[in-house]
């Protein structure tokens, strides 16, 4: 029983990481239909920001908290710059955007290698995140690492913040308007170009937050973005574009599925099985779990 619960919780914490990574994508890919392969490198930028801050601010506990807003701004600024330089010229050619941003991601990886060196670096987790919490006591205890709980909390907070921003703020209203009908939004006096850039800033900034979270569970390296980006895109594809709830549900379902399959088989077989499940799922719902219904044929 504890094994099942333990695997489920491992799955939930994998799901929380996936969710944090995919959340920014759900804004840039899901809402704006831009496939940004450099998203993984924005995550990397967030992680390296944490590393640099920890080097300059000695207290590990404070530096992690400082890193959250700083990484948001660093990655967000990178994203806004990328949007302004390249992506805005390519809104009509989504597949070309994919390859162009892949080129950007290659260059950013090499930049990280030149600045920080090819080997992975590590941050020290703050003291208040090193312990465990015992969820079920007794002879067969179920313990959960504090850092995992922190990531789960961070993911939930990010989802809530993004949802509230999209639902309640004037900016969110403009983003939704542009997503639903770009031309109508434009004739209503919304500067769609500015909305695009702001949405891209937000989505990329969320990648920075994800990068901060990833420093708690793994090493920081130039290729850390590439390792997670495909999984994150799959979350969006299966969850359906344009809706946050699909992303949230699918991130946790895939996390649990991965964890349970990994427990009963091996890591590599689990990856393949999850992919088979995704292809099978797309047979049933080719547009993903939730999708915005439109009258468009394509």
């Amino acid at each position: 029983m504890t094994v099942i619960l333990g695997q489920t919780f491992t799955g939930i914490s994998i799901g929380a990481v996936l969710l944090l990574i995919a959340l920014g994508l759900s804004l840039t890919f899901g809402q704006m239909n831009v496939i940004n392969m450099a998203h993984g490198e924005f995550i990397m930028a967030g992680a390296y920001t944490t590393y640099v801050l920890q080097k300059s601010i000695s207290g590990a506990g404070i530096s992690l908290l400082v890193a959250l807003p700083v990484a948001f701004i660093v990655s967000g600024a990178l994203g806004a710059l990328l949007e302004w330089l390249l992506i805005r010229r390519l809104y009509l050619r989504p597949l070309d955007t994919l390859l162009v941003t892949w080129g950007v991601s290659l260059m950013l990886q090499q930049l990280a290698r030149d600045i920080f060196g090819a080997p992975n670096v590590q941050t020290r987790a703050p003291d208040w995140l090193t312990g465990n919490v015992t969820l079920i006591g007794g002879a067969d205890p179920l313990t959960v690492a504090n850092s995992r709980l922190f990531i789960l909390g961070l993911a939930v907070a990010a989802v809530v913040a993004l949802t509230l921003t999209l639902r309640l703020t004037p900016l969110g209203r403009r983003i939704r308007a542009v997503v639903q009908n770009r031309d109508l939004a434009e004739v209503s006096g919304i500067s769609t170009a500015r909305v695009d850039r702001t949405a891209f800033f937000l989505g990329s900034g969320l990648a920075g937050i994800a990068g901060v979270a990833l420093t708690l569970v793994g090493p920081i390296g130039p290729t850390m973005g590439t390792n997670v980006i495909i999984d994150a895109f799959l979350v969006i594809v299966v969850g359906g574009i344009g809706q946050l709830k699909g992303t949230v549900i699918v991130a946790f379902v895939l996390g649990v599925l991965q964890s349970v399959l990994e427990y009963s088989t091996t890591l590599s077989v689990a990856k393949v099985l999850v992919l088979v499940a995704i292809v099978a799922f797309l047979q049933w719902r080719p547009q993903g779990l939730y999708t915005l219904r439109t009258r468009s044929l394509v």
Partner: protein
Amino acid sequence: MTLLHGRARTWAGFAGAAVLLFALAPLALTDFRLGLLAKYLCTAMVAVGICLAWGRGGLLTLGQGLFFGLGGYAMAMHLKIADAGPGNLPDFMQLYGTATELPWWWRPFANPAFALAATVLLPMAVAALLGSFIFRRRVKGAYFAILSQALAAAFAIWLIGQQATTGGTNGLTDIQGFFGYDLDDPVNQRTVYFVIAAALLLLIALARQLIHSRYGELLVAVRDSEERVRFLGYDPAKVKLVAYVVAAGMAGLAGALFVPAVGIISPAMIGIVPSIEFVIGAAVGGRASLVGAVLGAIGVAWAKTALSEEFPAAWTYFQGLLFIVALAFLPGGLASLGGVLRRRRDRQRKAAVVAVGEAA
């Protein structure tokens, strides 16, 4: 502007390419450089398929590494079994594994005819299965690209995980013989090069026939307006499936011939990064043009060797820049450069004429 037209030009192109590949290159290049050229030509074979599927059909296949790998591993498995000799296990299995006999799914590859057929038919069968699932449900565009990329990544991860039977991260290495011929002998290496060059020309001819057939027209129509094609009574899913399967077969053959040319196949050659590198060559040269895609693939592969030998870091920046410039600013690739420049010149000339007219 052009001296020859239509069919004559095509024949002249083929004859020129044949002279270049079969006469000039072996004479001019050292054995080492010829071996490298053989490797580049394999990349070009994959690019022919990508030109068909992506350039003509609009299917951005970011997972050609999957099919390249299937072909390569099918060939390498046979060659490993042949190297080991009857009754013996391939060397790496004795090293990592506890198995005393070949796994069941290795056994058919002991038969050379089966292995040769499998290098092409296995990728095609896998592509047909995946494609029929994916296209029938109208998964397309970016969704298809990401899914195909994930498939290549999953295949590489699976191979790494099964170290005892696939060689894991190392792959299948140190292949000595090729159907009884010793691959260390430069004469045999040269023969492998000729086989590869012939196969490339064959694939180009096949793709050219397809592109200029009724099917080729239909494929472009599906790329440009899938719904209209559907309303005209065709099934776009089938049209796309054919292009995907043919491209997979070409990638499989390329992988199979890559193995004797290089002597190794490993997961590092078929994962996400190499899969995208297959696409970049076609993109730089011109995705919709066969000549552009092939020359682009050879050129990019050559540039990679030349630059990464000297400055590995600079090569990565250059490669990234190549992606950005080629796709953002010259989507037709270098093959379209002539047309773009000509149009610009015509525009300028027209503007000049108008300016003169206004002045008068």
